[in-house]
């Protein structure tokens, strides 16, 4: 419904501001967004598939560690990485000061290049978002059947040819799903691009809304963004259905893991270290230093309350969102319901919607329900946690849907048939067959939604009830006043809270895999 509220703006009037946008800025916005999306796609693909390929095909020093540690940057929101990067690399940031002090250079000497530009933004997005690709790529690599790859070997391909000519192309459909998430998140972000002052499509949306006071045009712009994303999604959907070459998980023999010699092992170690270093260790250590130095009291008074709110909300939203995705995907599979499948894709585009625009859609929806359907004189839903949870579900449905539907595709239809013939249908079929088989996907979905909700800011700000703080809100309160260093303490808290589910769930996934049950 909130999505409909946003899209319905398309049927509203088109104001004069469109002329202005078209004449002066629209193409600039589009170009910047396109460059950003392209750059981020290329870089995340390299990092995500590269690291996934290494840890799933080879044994090298640190592999067990990298396997789960490479997911860690997921706990860092792009806007926080942007803040810390400026703190580190700005002309008078930590690193430039360090270089100057070490080499006793002049104050005006600037060693690190300016990162407040589109290249900086590409790096920021890539190093926080590549885990989406890493996750899907790794599970796809792990599910590749040995026999296919071995037949390649027999046909005379060497080890690397097999990887690039067989293994990589074979996981393409899986990776495209992850890439869609990366693209959508990049398009919807406002915090990081605003900080780097890059005029992207999203900046344009907010500029039109805030600056020109023209919310309708802003929502029309958002709608076009959504339509664009919907087209992407349709293409992806098609490509995935045409190319069903993900092999099925039940009986094939797992790929053979090769031990690397020490030189290659070192190379692999370095390649896996870079994303972890840039995307996690560097920013967290900088934040840690700031937090201790500038605002340690945050952990005494505000932390507990905000952390508790954050966790509760995140868990509730994640469970509801994953269950919704599970139910919808299950019904689509069993009933081959085209309307539900459309609904599912439709809900997925919510991920690309900038949080604040979504929030406006939700406020309009809940106030409409409140004043027309429920008690007319008070607002039961508006400003309640209901709206907030709804926002999170719409915002993160794509994450759940992506993991759960790809998990479901791996369950052979023969299993459904056997179960149905053995008198299992409906809830029983879901509970005794699909849910157990999808446990890993389900938990992954919960993990992704939790880390998304913990990071989510704009919708929280505007939809929350009175006196309700989350960690992201606390961060924003400082960051909005350009007090990045005071924002460090709550940022660290966001990362810590985001880490808990990542660690728990990677352990669960690993143990369920080790048991051999799946």
């Amino acid at each position, binding site marked *: 419904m909130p999505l409909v509220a946003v899209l319905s703006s398309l049927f509203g009037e088109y104001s004069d501001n469109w002329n202005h946008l078209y004449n002066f800025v629209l193409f600039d916005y589009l170009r910047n967004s396109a460059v950003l999306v392209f750059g981020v796609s290329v870089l995340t693909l390299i990092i995500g598939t590269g690291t996934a390929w290494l840890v799933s095909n080879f044994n090298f020093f640190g592999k067990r560690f990298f396997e789960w540690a490479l997911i860690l940057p997921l706990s860092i929101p792009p806007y926080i990485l942007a803040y810390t990067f400026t703190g580190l690399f700005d002309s008078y940031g930590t690193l430039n000061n360090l270089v100057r002090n070490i080499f006793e250079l002049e*104050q005006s000497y600037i060693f690190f290049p300016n990162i407040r530009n589109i290249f900086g933004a590409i790096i920021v997005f890539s190093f926080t978002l590549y885990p989406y690709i890493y996750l899907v790529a790794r599970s796809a690599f792990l599910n590749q059947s040995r026999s296919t790859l071995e037949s390649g070997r027999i046909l005379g391909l060497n080890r690397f040819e097999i990887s690039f000519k067989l293994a990589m192309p074979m996981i393409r459909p899986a990776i495209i799903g992850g890439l869609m998430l990366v693209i959508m998140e990049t398009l919807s972000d406002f915090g990081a691009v605003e900080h780097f002052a890059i005029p992207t499509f999203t900046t344009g949306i907010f500029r039109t809304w805030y600056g020109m006071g023209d919310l309708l045009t802003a929502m029309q712009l958002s709608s076009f963004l959504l339509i664009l994303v919907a087209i992407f999604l349709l293409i992806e959907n098609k490509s995935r259905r045409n190319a069903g070459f993900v092999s099925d998980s039940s009986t094939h023999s797992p790929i053979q893991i090769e031990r690397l010699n020490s030189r290659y092992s070192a190379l692999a170690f370095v390649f896996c270290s870079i994303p972890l270093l840039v995307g996690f260790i560097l920013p967290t250590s900088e934040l840690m230093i700031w937090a201790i130095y500038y605002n340690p009291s945050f952990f005494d008074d505000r932390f507990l309350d905000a952390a508790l709110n954050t966790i509760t909300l995140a868990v509730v939203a994640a469970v*509801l969102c994953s269950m919704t995705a599970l139910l919808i995907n299950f019904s689509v599979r069993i009933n081959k319901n085209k309307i539900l499948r459309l609904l599912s894709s439709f809900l997925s585009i919510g991920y690309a919607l900038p949080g604040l625009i979504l929030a*406006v859609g939700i*406020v309009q929806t809940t106030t409409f329900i409140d004043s027309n359907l429920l008690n007319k004189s008070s607002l*039961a839903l508006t400003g309640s946690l209901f709206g907030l949870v709804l926002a999170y579900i719409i915002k993160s449905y794509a994450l759940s849907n992506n993991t759960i539907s790809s998990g479901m595709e791996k369950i052979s239809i023969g299993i459904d048939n056997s179960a149905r013939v053995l008198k299992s249908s409906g809830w029983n079929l879901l509970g005794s067959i699909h849910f157990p088989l999808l446990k890993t996907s389900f938990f992954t979905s919960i993990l992704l939604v939790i880390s998304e909700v913990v990071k989510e800011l704009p919708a929280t700000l*505007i939809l929350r009830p009175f006196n309700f703080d989350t960690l992201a809100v606390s961060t924003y309160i400082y960051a909005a006043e350009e*007090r990045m*260093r005071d924002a460090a303490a709550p940022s660290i808290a966001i990362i810590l809270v985001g880490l808990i589910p990542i660690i728990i769930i990677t352990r669960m996934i690993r143990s369920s895999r080790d048991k051999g049950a799946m």
Partner: protein
Amino acid sequence: MCFKLNNPIKSLIAICLLFSLTEIIANEVNIYTSRHYDSDDLLYKDFSDATGIKVNIISGKGEALIERLKSEGSNSSADIFLTSDAGNLWKVQKEGLFKSISSEKIMQSVPVNFRGPNNEWIGIAKRARVIFYNPDNVPSKDIEKLSYEDLSQEAWKNRIVVRSSNNIYNQSLVASMISNNGIAATETWAKGFVSNFARKPQGNDRSQIIAVANGEADIAIANSYYFGIMLSGSAGPDQMKAANKVKMLFPNQNNRGTHVNISGAGVLRNSKNPINAEAFLEFLLSSKAQSHIVNNTYEYPVIDTIPPSPVIAQFGTSFVEDKTSASDFGKFNSEAIKLMDRVGWK
């Protein structure tokens, strides 16, 4: 394995009800604010301690809060809208969401140009958008009588830094110039001004000041209170060091005065606690609250009896202020943005 779909939904509804219930009871005042200062929290606490009225807060982006207010309509539980920009006050006023403030006490303390046309809102603190220069690189005689308008002159080629035009402070500044000089003159000025930039607009107000301190540029435009924060040392020794290298200058002292924007607040038309709301505004104008604000946020006070923080008072307290009505910032904001787009102010 079976699904208990009901339970999470039930508990969710229970949580929702719990929250809506807590909002109904108690002697309170509900504030939507786009000011996000820690020090404001202390202010709310002082107010509660003094009056026994509980303060409930939702802070967020001003524009988004306005949308929420509009949608909530007559059911809104908000009593006060508090913001750090006059443009947003004007938007709420235009939507007819404010009611006129009746308190005589308030009218006496706040000058007319910091009030809405029908007293819909009042300023509670001021900030000046001023010029920063590095005395090592810019001789003081060059800039003695400097005005914003002068910054389009050829002499400043590649010497100016300012943040992006997304920023509301720049939008308000340009809006005030449109109000005074008209669109055409302002556009000509802006073209020259933009061509004098030393770098692509980037970073926040503080990075502009730092750029001047480091000699990347000679002149920066930024808000007065950021300078106060930097000088105070609360932002760390590096920023304090940088701030100590630059000087602050009030432009347009020989004509209309320096551009001044306000933080302000108004009582909402659908307020359920209007008396508490006015009591809160009166409190914000009290000497205690005013000196709390000036000494924590380094803004200028709106009442004469309180001096600004000594940290920024050293650069002068009795500067000439541009008396352009704060409503005009809102009124011309859209024109200002389009103008900046046209001249390529990124």
